């Protein structure tokens, strides 16, 4: 054991690992936002509420069908993703020809509705959800005690994040998506069902948020406001990373999680604001974001 800047090394590495875990959630959520924004040019303000819905649906699944964490990890995102697609079909699609800000306002209103309904139905204090049996406990890594669940969080999010990046950037489907964003008319002329593609994309982005919600349920308080507290930080992450960049969202998410974790060690009072400060600096130096494309 040695000391770095007065902090014992095991504490430091422990915090780095934790920062990576936090970063997983930032990455998952900003990935969903980046996918939706990159493909649809819509700022999905209800992303936080949909994250919360994922956790709530997981709880409801547990309550009413007895199905636990593992089924919920798949079922909940699908359910919430479907609600997302319904939203897109019934409300969002009318806004594409209007100024982008209307999409932001609509999803903001939706976020209020979702949060309000969740609160009325299930109370404001929160709902119990525990870590699944198979992931309970942890192992002593020597420099810290790592709960198994947290290790799972890192592995799962890295997989999903890079899986998504791969699909979008390296597969034909992803190529269609990217082309459809650039020039929908031309892509349609090729016989590709662009509206369906867009609906599915929004549904996928929302499902990503819900997936993050299910992952959060065992360790964070499942309450109606769990999303709104997180979403503003995630927006800052997305701005830093560059709004339409998938890779940017992933890297920035993990990176900022680590930076926040380090701040908690050296200067805990500032860990709330550090991300916003970084955002301000990035905007001064590189207005398009770290990975963003200008224009």
């Amino acid at each position: 054991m040695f000391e770095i800047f007065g902090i014992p090394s095991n504490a430091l590495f422990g915090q780095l690992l934790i920062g990576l875990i936090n970063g997983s959630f930032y990455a998952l959520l900003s990935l969903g936002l980046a996918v939706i924004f990159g493909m649809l040019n819509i700022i999905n303000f209800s992303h936080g509420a949909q994250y919360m819905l994922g956790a709530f649906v997981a709880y409801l699944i547990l309550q009413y069908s007895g199905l636990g964490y593992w089924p919920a990890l798949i079922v909940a995102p699908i359910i919430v993703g479907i609600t997302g697609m319904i939203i897109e079909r019934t409300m969002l699609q009318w806004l594409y020809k209007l100024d982008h800000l209307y999409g932001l306002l609509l999803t903001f209103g939706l976020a209020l509705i979702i949060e309000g309904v969740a609160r009325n139905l299930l109370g404001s204090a929160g709902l119990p959800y525990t870590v699944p049996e198979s992931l309970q406990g942890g192992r002593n890594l020597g420099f810290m005690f790592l709960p198994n669940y947290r290790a799972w969080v890192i592995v799962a999010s890295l997989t999903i994040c890079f899986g998504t990046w791969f699909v979008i950037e390296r597969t034909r489907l992803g190529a269609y998506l990217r082309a459809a964003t650039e020039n929908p008319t031309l892509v349609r002329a090729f016989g590709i069902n662009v509206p369906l593609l867009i609906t599915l994309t929004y549904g996928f982005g929302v499902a990503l948020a819900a997936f993050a919600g299910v992952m959060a349920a065992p360790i964070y308080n499942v309450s109606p406001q769990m999303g709104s507290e997180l979403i503003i930080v995630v927006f800052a992450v997305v701005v830093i990373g560059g709004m339409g960049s998938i890779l940017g969202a992933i890297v920035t998410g993990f990176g900022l999680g680590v930076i926040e974790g380090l701040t908690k060690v050296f200067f805990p009072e500032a860990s709330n604001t550090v991300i916003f400060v970084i955002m301000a600096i990035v905007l001064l130096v590189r207005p398009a974001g770290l990975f963003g494309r200008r224009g």
Partner: protein
Amino acid sequence: MKKTMGLAALAVMLACGTASAQQINVKIGVLSDMSSLYADIGGPGSVAAAKMAIADFTKDHANVKVELISGDHQNKPDVGSQIANQWFDVDKVDMLIDVPNSGVALAVSEVAKQKNKIFIVSGAAASTLTGAKCNANTVHWTYDTWMLANGTGKAMVKTGGDTWFFLTADYAFGHALEADTSAVVEKNGGKIVGKVRAPLNTNDFSSFLLQAQASKAKVIGLANAGGDTINSIKQAAEFGIVKGGQKLAGLLVFSSDVNALGLQTAQGLSLTETWYWDANDTNRAWTKRWHEAGAAAGKFPTMIHAGVYAGILHYLKARLAMGPGEHDGKSVVAKMKSMPTDDVLFGKGTIDVTGRKRHDAYLFEVKKPSESKHPGDFYTLKATIPASEAFRDPKDSGCSLVSG
């Protein structure tokens, strides 16, 4: 015979006459958070408790007529202040009760003072309400931060938890809770081995909990509230802190929070409350009636709700004793302070000169899931703190109403 009949008739007439002359009309407003963070600890449950109190009192005293209105301050001091002003000025409300959220409570307390009306705080925690910011129109029922700090702190040190590590929410409330508890722990022979400040609404306490674990303190004091407390407890369970032998002391925890956590996660948590629904048969019966009065099924009443009930009862007793006619806020509160309190929920107690209601407090420990026999069976009683010790001595309050 005729004379007695005549006299009897006269007596009846007089009685009826004086009965209607003794009609007392009051209007009570329950101002709470109906739609947001504190809706479970206060909210519609407080309104249900108020209705019960009014029904119970007017059942025995037909000459008292009580009108009840309720409002939602939405956790915004502006809204709370506006509603309080309107209620006092326009709606002729005499007494306002509940108000979870200390910021709103301070604002409403100020309004009550300006309009010379009455404000009974059940929901809010700030001990400054009977301290530096006290006034002659405000009564603070149920609990406050001083009581929480002293209750949990002292009782835990006495039961062996003499080394403490604080996980504090980094804002005024958290600091106050930490400061008060530290003082008590040290006064009773304990030692503070470390502390860390986490920003408000932190999601992930892992790094802070790791530090707490490393400190090997016997007790980890959670100087935070609401979602922060729930998250720290949930994550502490994840890191096996309680299993590892350290005790968690929640400095502000309600039974609704325990409900939200579930016993699996919250087991072993120590906390102080002044009323628990499952403590005895009286409370259980009251809880059944509370559900019938309109509270949501599946929820359990908190000490806040009990405070609303008891506070209204005592207010009505005082009003009755003062007789019909107009009475300004200060004089009614003075009357409330002069009368000892006695109700089925809090038992015997008093209201001291600062407006602080004094009653027994209880140190509870959350049961293991296996120990819980029915839904809502959360606590084991660990210690009872008598009223004389549970609350701050008026001499130490800094309240201007304390003479000398």
